[in-house]
């Protein structure tokens, strides 16, 4: 199946000389939720703004559902909805007026029933006659989503969709994004909330300093790069690690009450059985043990730190 968004060698250097994007190549699959992770200033918003037509790329090509976004901008843009990071609203407009305006602006004929359905889905129907200035931040965020969905896009960009919203709304947003995906909408979201990507994404891209450093299925990524930790809770505290356990590069934690062993969960020989045998042999007693796996956040931090270290 051809990708629904195809980014080919896209770069962006601003007039100030700042290189916001190094050559980016990325294909987004139809119907997936793709999370673009990266620290502030990594180039996430620049990339989204280029795809949506707000920023002009310095070079490269982008295709949205087969349409090149600059030459063939009308059908390309008609497919795309954007929820920007900032809560930018015309404060004097009503919820209904601003949503129907967006639908018309994107070239769609009026459809009251469709707009009503969106507003109901987003729990905005009861507030449809209210001016935007009377809404809370969370409700305004919903209005931004309603506007982006008003022209029935098949590709939806969510730039930091849950920045500054409360936990309940965040959960609602996640549920909404899943419903949209179930209805065939491809979602590309940027976030620096790792748990958001971990919760929702099918695939993850990591961008840092304008460079796409990794694109991977979420599960594969966690599996591939995931480190596991074995923690042994000792019966008696230790002051130092016995030399007989030197091969395992253990760490002494919790004031000498715990021994921690980090290992590659996918390796053929993890070293766990031999470690446990050795510990028993030398007479070190432990009363409990547990294992933990690296979260996406650990992976992300290690990737970005590694890159920063490599380029420093």
């Amino acid at each position: 199946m051809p990708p629904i968004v195809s980014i080919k060698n896209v770069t962006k250097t601003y007039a100030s000389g700042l290189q916001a994007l190094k050559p980016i190549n990325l294909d987004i699959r139809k119907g997936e939720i793709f999370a673009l992770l990266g620290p502030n200033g990594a180039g996430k918003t620049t990339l989204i703004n280029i795809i949506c037509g707000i920023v002009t790329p310095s070079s490269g090509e982008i295709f949205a559902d087969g349409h090149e976004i600059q030459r063939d901008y009308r059908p390309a843009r008609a497919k795309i909805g954007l929820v920007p990071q900032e809560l930018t609203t015309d404060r004097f407009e009503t919820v209904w007026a601003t949503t129907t305006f967006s639908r018309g602006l994107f070239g769609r004929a009026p459809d009251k029933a469709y707009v009503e359905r969106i507003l109901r889905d987003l729990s905005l129907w009861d507030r449809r006659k209210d001016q935007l200035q009377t809404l809370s931040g969370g409700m305004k965020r919903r209005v931004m989503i309603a506007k982006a969905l008003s022209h029935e896009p098949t590709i939806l960009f969510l730039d930091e969709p849950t920045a500054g919203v409360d936990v309940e709304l965040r959960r609602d947003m996640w549920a909404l994004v899943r419903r949209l995906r179930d209805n065939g909408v491809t979602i590309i979201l940027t976030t620096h909330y790792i748990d958001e990507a971990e919760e929702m994404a099918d695939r993850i891209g990591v961008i840092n300093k304008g460079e796409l450093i990794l694109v991977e299925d979420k599960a594969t990524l966690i599996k591939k790069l995931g480190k596991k930790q074995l923690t042994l809770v000792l019966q008696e505290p230790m002051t130092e690690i016995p030399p007989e356990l030197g091969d395992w590069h253990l760490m002494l934690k919790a004031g000498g009450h715990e021994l921690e062993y980090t290992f590659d969960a996918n390796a053929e020989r993890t070293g766990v059985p031999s470690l446990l045998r050795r510990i028993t042999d030398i007479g070190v007693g432990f009363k409990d043990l547990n294992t933990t796996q690296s979260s996406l956040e650990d992976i992300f931090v290690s990737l970005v730190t590694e890159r920063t270290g490599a380029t420093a």
Partner: protein
Amino acid sequence: MNALTFNRHSVWAIYKFEMARALRTITQSIITPVMTTSLYFVVFGAAIGSRMTQVDGVPYGSFIVPGLIMLSLFTQSIFNGSFGIYFPKFVGTIYELLSAPISYLEIVVAYVGAAATKSIILGLLILTTASLFVPIRILHPEWMIAFLVLTSMTFSLFGFILGIWAQGFEQLQMIPMLIVTPLTFLGGSFYSISMLPPTWRTIALFNPVVYLISGFRWSFYGTSDVGVEISLAATLGFFIVCLLVVGWIFKTGYRLKS
């Protein structure tokens, strides 16, 4: 939808949105300018006009009507044209316009069309109001409408350029307040430039507004400071210059796109 088709839904959405804004702020967009112009009639028409003789065979109160309509057309067209595009820039909703499947020409048609419509309505309202104070005759109604429409469109387009250029409300006000209004006052709104001493008359001919007011006044009373063909050519010339500037703005993304 390809690049050659006309995106009527988008154009209509912007046009309707802008007209709705004018209705919402009717005091500012309609009532205030009509009231201000009525005050001009009271001051210049009734108070001063009663002490003046006729100008070019037209009673002074009637003579100033076309100039006063033009004064409002210039200022309101610039205001409407500039505010329409500046406000989305100011509040950040411009992202929606830039990401919509709409051509630059359609954006201009929608915003300038709405701004010009508001100005034309205002001009006709002022004309109606003026007819309550002084006798008015329109010798060439078709040319009166043509000048009204062309001037509204031209200055709305000029306002649109200002709205894109301006980076703050001060800049938005600067050109209309410091350049356009003085040129209008000095351009024969309240007098015929034939009443000026020869040197000042020559200097006045460098003021483009003279040609616009003169042509419009000709459509009412058949008298003008300069030939009507020159007036029409000057208005069209300014319109084309504005169109070229707008074309350049959208081609380069000046103050719109990074």
